Each structure stands twice: as structure tokens, then as C-alpha cells.
């Protein structure tokens, strides 16, 4: 685990130094607050993704599901009000996550197929509901969720911090976390030890879905409208933060703490590249290279395990 203890922190410091030399604005309080705000959404999806990956799965549907929830929660909000809309969004997340979980744990579909199917279905429903148009006229108070502050800290970042701490404790201190690791490490061993594997798998997917639901609601608040395309790329970003942090795909190795570093690294990288005017298109290319590289390096370091 030297990568997450030494290598990645060093890379983060190096990136921060480089960007602050290239652009003095990097270290302004305003910009750092921006990084925190932008990283908040990624924190939520990456925490969920990490737990799913630790259990031996992974989720390609995050982005489209965010779009679907954004649209659906906005519609409910317009019809019935602020709180019911937000609640509907979060509950939809739980339901969709649990459905992915049932496909993986009960129907034994490979996570790749299950979540690709969910991605397609979610996109379809989102476009049917929205007709491809943004849903506006959301309640005024709703803006506070994405733009508000708690003691000068952006509210989304506070939510993200709470989620990080909660997920960390859950994975390290509880039976639930222990079983998620065991299932990811050797599902057969977990079964033989009497762990109700299917139930725990569905639970971890549902929990991930809950975080995706929260992310969708916060993102909708920041966009001040519901969009079917709101979460574009979120699945790749969350997988990237997970693997850059050093959590291995399909081996039950890694941690939420690793992913915190992965999120910080991604946040600084994206923000820094924006500050030095590298276009989003090039950033997409970079993301692809980084994901492939991170997984390759991880496999290379653990060959023969």
C-alpha cells in the first residue's frame, strides 16, 4: 500500500506546487473553496463506487442515473414541493441501486452487463419524462442546498465530508464493512462462513444508490434545473477516483481513505488544468489515460498476489 501512503500524496503535493507556480490564483481561498465545491459531488459518487468495487462489483450507470433522478426529482418537486422532491430523488437512488444489486447478486449478471442495462434504461426514462428539455421553475429555497454555506464552508462539501467519515467508519468498524471486504476478496469463503452474501451485496448497492441519489439532488440544485444529461461522465470519474486512490477492481483491496486521496487528486488536477486553460476535451483524453494507467500500475504492483 505504498502508493496510497506515499506515492499518491507526493503526486498531490507536486500537482499543487506546479499549478500554484503556473497560476498564482490556485491558492486563493476562493479557488480552494471552488475545488471543494466541485469535488463534493465526486466525493459522494466515489464513496459509493468504492464500496461497490470493494464488494467485487462496479457501476457504469452512475451518470445516467444521476440524470434520471435529476429529472424525476425535479418533476416531483414542481408538483408537490421541495422536501418531497428531494426525498423522492434520494429514494429513487436507493431503489435503482438495489435493482442493480438484485441483478448482480440474485440474477448473477456480471456488473458490467447489469449496470450497462441500467444505464440504457435510465437514459430512456429520463428522456421520456423530460422530453429532452430541462425542468425549470424549481422552488427558490432549493438553491441553498448547492450554493449554501455552513460556517463559510460550501454545504455540498460539508455533506461530502460527513459521507466520507460515515463510509469510512462503516467499512472499517462494522460487521457490514467486514463482510463487504470478505465478499470482494473471496465470495465463496464468505458464503461458507455463513455470511448472507446476496443480502449484503444488495445492501451495498442500495447504499451506493442512496449516495448517487444525494449527489443527483445536490447537482440539480447547483444547476437550478433538472437535466437528463446532468451526470455525464460521473461513472468514469467515480471509477477513476477509486482506482487512482489504489482500490483494486475485483479484489476487495483498498479503502474509503484511499478514495479520499483519489478525489483530492482528481479535484486538483481538473481545477489546475482549468486554471491553465487546458480544454475539457483534452481533460477527457487525460482521464482515459489516467484510468488505464492507474489500473495497469496496480496490476503490475500486485502481480502474483
Amino acid at each position, binding site marked *: 500500500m505504498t502508493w496510497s501512503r506515499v506515492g499518491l500524496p507526493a503526486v498531490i503535493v507536486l500537482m499543487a506546487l506546479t499549478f500554484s507556480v503556473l497560476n498564482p490564483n490556485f491558492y486563493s481561498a476562493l479557488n480552494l473553496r471552488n475545488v471543494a465545491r466541485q469535488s463534493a459531488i465526486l466525493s459522494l459518487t466515489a464513496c459509493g463506487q468504492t464500496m461497490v468495487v470493494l464488494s467485487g462489483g462496479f457501476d457504469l450507470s452512475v451518470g445516467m442515473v444521476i440524470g434520471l433522478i435529476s429529472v424525476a426529482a425535479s418533476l416531483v418537486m414542481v408538483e408537490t414541493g421541495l422536501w418531497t422532491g428531494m426525498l423522492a430523488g434520494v429514494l429513487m437512488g436507493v431503489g435503482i441501486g438495489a435493482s442493480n444489486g438484485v441483478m448482480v447478486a440474485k440474477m448473477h449478471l456480471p456488473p458490467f452487463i447489469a449496470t450497462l442495462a441500467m444505464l440504457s434504461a435510465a437514459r430512456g426514462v429520463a428522456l421520456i419524462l423530460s422530453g429532452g428539455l430541462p425542468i425549470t421553475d424549481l422552488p427558490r429555497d432549493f438553491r441553498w442546498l448547492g450554493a449554501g454555506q455552513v460556517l463559510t464552508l460550501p454545504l455540498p462539501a460539508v455533506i461530502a465530508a460527513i459521507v466520507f467519515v460515515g463510509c469510512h467508519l462503516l467499512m472499517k468498524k462494522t*460487521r457490514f464493512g*467486514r463482510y463487504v*471486504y*470478505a465478499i470482494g*476478496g*473471496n465470495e465463496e469463503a*464468505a458464503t461458507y462462513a*455463513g455470511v448472507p452474501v446476496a443480502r449484503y451485496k444488495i445492501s451495498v448497492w442500495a447504499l451506493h444508490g442512496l449516495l448517487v441519489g444525494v449527489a443527483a439532488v445536490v447537482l440539480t440544485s447547483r444547476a437550478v434545473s433538472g437535466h437528463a444529461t446532468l451526470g455525464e461522465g460521473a461513472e468514469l470519474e467515480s471509477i477513476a477516483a477509486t482506482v487512482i486512490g489504489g482500490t483494486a477492481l475485483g479484489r476487495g483491496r483498498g479503502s474509503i481513505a484511499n478514495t479520499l486521496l483519489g478525489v483530492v487528486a482528481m479535484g486538483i488536477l481538473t481545477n489546475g488544468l482549468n486554471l491553465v486553460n487546458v480544454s475539457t476535451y483534452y481533460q477527457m483524453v487525460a482521464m482515459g489515460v489516467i484510468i488505464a494507467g492507474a489500473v495497469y500500475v496496480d496490476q503490475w504492483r500486485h502481480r502474483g498476489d
Partner: protein
Amino acid sequence: MTPGAPLVEMRGIVKAFGAVEALRGADLTLGVAEVLGLVGDNAAGKSTLMKILTGVHRPDAGEIVFEGRAVAFHSPRDSRALGIEMIYQNLALAPNLDVVGNVFLGRERTKRVLPRVMEWLDERRMDAETRKILDRLKIRMDSVRAPVARLSGGQQQAVAIARAVSFNARVVVMDEPTASLAVKEVGKVLALVSELRAKQVSVILISHRLQDVFTVADRVMVLRGGRGALDTRIGDTTMDEVVKYIVGADTGGLSHLASGR
């Protein structure tokens, strides 16, 4: 339970995996504090029969009686609750968890943080208990906090043995427990089997090493083609005879009589 009645009885167990008939009406009895050697050729159905006893597989037909009561196991959790433990042939360890995590997998010790709401793993207690278990079994391990993926094959086998024998088991099934052990370690395992018997624990020992079976077992049972071919007290047979029943040569009608009991 009447005195002398068997602890475990499996009757007419049938199990097919698709077209493969792994078990075709196998019977097995195990007394209290009895060591039963279970032998047979590769693919004879030994592991499958034991996995049915622990609730990993459910039989297509047949019944299991424990302490005189018919039981149906839906998961290994059910059999564990009755004190049936198994060391699986492939060990079934989680390589990413440490020794403590594997020994206590499925029966973690917890402490209350908020009563009824939140329980945390009691790592300190599990750590201490694991050390005690390893000490008692004279297993040396540099660190109980190392992921088992980093242990040697023999050490991994020791972890699997430790977790099966240390929690008030009444029946311990050992599926090839000495496969990756050095000669000296094999002796330790056989001594452990005798020790378990002395503590009134029953043991089913699966082994391809007949000399091990003849050293510790009270009875030996041969499975062939998913059915019992021989079931006898160790004193009433010889290794040569057992080998004959395993390979099925020259036993013709005899095997029928033996399995019909």
C-alpha cells in the same frame, strides 16, 4: 438422544450437478467422539457429501439427522449453529482479510456503541482471542494482522484449521487438511484430531493418505461413484482392502452388500 445413538446420520443422499451425479444414495453415520476416515477416488463425491452436511449444497434427496432430529440446512450458518465446522479443501479464506478477520469471519465479536443501533467490531478482543487460539494449537505466526494472501500455503492451512476447531465445535470435517503441510506439521494435525476426540468432538477426516486415516480414525468409509462402498471399523480391515474398495477392483457384489448395510 439415547446413549450410543449416532450424532450425525445422513441417509440416501442424492445430489446432481447438471448431468453429473455426484452422489447416488450415500449414507453416513458418525458417533459422538468418533473419528471417521472418509476416503475415495477423485470425484467420488467426498467433498460434495460434506458440503451437504455443512449446508453449502442442498441434497436432491435424502435426509440428515442430527442428535436424533431431522434437520435441513439452508446455509452454512445453520450447520454452524449446531456446532458443525468444516475445513474446506480449497481452504475458503478471504485473501484480503488478515488472520483475525478470517478466523472470526461470520462470527465477529462486537461491542455496543449505541445500544441496539450501532455495534462496532471488537478488534482488540478478536486479536487477543486469535493469539490464544494459535498458541493453544502451537501455530506460530509472525503477525495476526497480515493479510492471509501473504502467508505460506502451510500457514494458510493452519488458519483454516484454527478457525474450524476453536469455537466449541461438536463435529469437525477436515477435507484434505494436510495437503500442503510438511511431515512434522502433518503429525501435529493428527495429534489435534486425537485431542478433539478426547474432548468429545467428532471428526470426519478426508484424506488420500491412507496411513493418516489408519493412524487416527476409529472407522473408515469408502465412497465410490457417489455411493458407500465400504464402512467398517479400522481394526477390521487393512490398507490393502481399503485400496481395493477405492479403486473398485475385485469387489463385485461385495460392495453392494457393504453399502446396503
